[in-house]
């Protein structure tokens, strides 16, 4: 009887050991994938930041001013060419609050 138990335990031990080997292999493989994905994320983040910086560089005041003046023939607005409008709703609300 004892021998049967011993044999069973041995088999169980072998199976569990092999399973452990399999699992740890899988864990390493998955970790490798995760790590690669993280690296990819960092790379894409950096790329995003770079592209965002480039987009902002296209919209700096220097460039906007230059394009507005040279290409579009614009010039800064002065009060003389500004039509001031009174927001009737806002004035009424302010009057009501008072």
């Amino acid at each position, binding site marked *: 009887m004892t021998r049967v138990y011993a044999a069973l335990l041995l088999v169980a031990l072998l199976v569990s050991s092999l399973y452990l080997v399999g699992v740890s292999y899988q864990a*390493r493989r998955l970790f*490798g994938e995760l*790590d690669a994905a993280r690296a990819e994320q960092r790379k894409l983040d*950096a790329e995003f930041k*770079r592209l965002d*910086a480039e987009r902002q560089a296209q919209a700096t*005041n220097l460039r906007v001013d230059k394009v507005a003046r040279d290409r579009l023939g614009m010039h800064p607005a002065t*009060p*003389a060419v500004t039509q001031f409008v009174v927001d009737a709703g806002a004035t009424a609300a302010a009057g009501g609050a008072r």
Partner: protein
Amino acid sequence: MRAWLGRQRGARAGARARSVSYATSPLLASKTPPWRSKLLVAFVGIGFIVLLARAVHIQVLDSGFYLAEADKRILRNEKLPASRGRIVDRNGQVLATSVLAPSFRAEPKAFQADRQQRRQLARLLGLSPAELEERLAENPNWVWLRRHVDETAAQAVRAMNLKGVHEEREYRRKYHEGEAAAHVVGFTGVGDAGQEGVELAFDKELAGRDGRRQVIKDRLGRTVEDIGNSVPPVDGRDVALSIDSKVQFFAYQRIRDAVAEHKAKAGSVVVLDVQTGEVLALANYPSFVPGDRHNLTGAQLRNRALTDTFEPGSTMKPFIAALAMETGRVKPDTVIGTAPGRLTITGSTISDAHPHGDLTVAQVIQKSSNVGTVKMAMQMQPREMHELFAQVGFGQRPQIGFPGAVTGRLRPYKTWKPIEQATMSYGYGLSASLFQIARAYTVFARDGELIPVSILKNEAQAPAPAAGGLMRARAGAAQPVAGVRVMSPETARAVRSMLQMAAGDGGTAPKAQAMGYSVGGKTGTAHKQEGKGYADRKFRAWFVGIAPIAKPRIVVAVMVDEPGGAKYYGGDVAAPVFSQVVQQTLRMLDVPTDLEVRPQIVAKSSVAGVPESN
């Protein structure tokens, strides 16, 4: 004889061995002494004990060395670089940001490339082939080929896939506003440490901390396991400045044009928001491009508005008038005789540029009369004047958290001689930076209160509890900041109307007037100090003013250094810059106009309708 016997015996024994079988060998019958086997057992036992002891030594007592050796072969320390925080303006426009800029290094002894590949590599990295060879010859193990390569070139180098060429992830600062905001933003060194401006002042907040982790790598260099003790990288925090990049750009453009027009050496503009105490613009010319490392030296790096002091001259006169009114010595309409335009105090003569007759106090400020100002000042104690000057920030370093801000010079009143008290009343004998003068003028703009100024955006919410001392956001600071009362509101208002007269027709700076907005301000023009005396043909012209007068919103200070043209008075050189900056800034801040403007809008609707109907 003995040798012969021995041979005899040996021959006989050999003969017998051939005939005797193993089992009956008499050798077996002979008794071995018991100590022999014991000795053998003892030897084996000792052998095992030695092995055991060695094993214990290696495994238990001195395990560290071997563990370290094992780790060396599989463990790798990886650095996780943190990126430096951004610097943004008050509207979130990015002024400085870090972008990935790979650097390439080479291992010359492993470097393999044919002639054409070398030439291509040199071209991509922006080197001449000779330079490339030179760098490769520097050190056989490790040399930088090129740091901070732009992305397109980096991709091409990567595609070449050369042996012995390695890529390092590095960040580089990008400065979008370039030279317009260069003095405020500053720049960093190659190690990404701040070297000037905000980059230096808030280096700690911006820097961030690199993380690291330990991993196990396999034969092929793939990461297979993360050993627990990793430190995640902490990215630097963003710093939001009070600067408005549009105002900043406009101010820079104007001062640049003014410096060019008047053939001047340099110029500065400071724009302060008097409600919140924020610096909206701080522009200097000449400037530099912070991203280009070749020209980061010399005088152009100086933030002149903060670091250069000069004698504030006539811009001090309103303070004397304010003090005289505050102490009840004069009223705005008190008449002071300034004829004949000269006044002698202890042997020295003070004179006006143009002699005037009797002037009221308001007119003294309007016409910028030295004699009139001195007559008011000589009624006062030196202590009173010194107290007022100190209260409005002269002789004190502005609390702006910016590197290089100077204190200026204000001597203790006990050492003042009468003539010095007189000259100090119109701004000679003490010195201040343009920034200090601009800040002092917030007293008039804020009805007698001096407000703290800040280069950081005042936010209603504190950004983070981890904020350092400098990053402390004042609670509820989106509302006007509290100031320190220096004079009564009535006095401040009276001075404001005098300043408006000075900037009006009949004043010293009618060119300061802005379209649609009431302005007031004071000009200053001074011979530059050189050594002990004053230079003959070198001037400095400036203008400090407030707008709009009734409900002040901004203080603008403009300084032009050594205008070389025919015009050199502050009213001609600096005041037009003031006018333009005020007009644009108030428009950008959505401040309604307070003066009637003759509209130049031509109603086109009816005219436009006709051609369309055709």
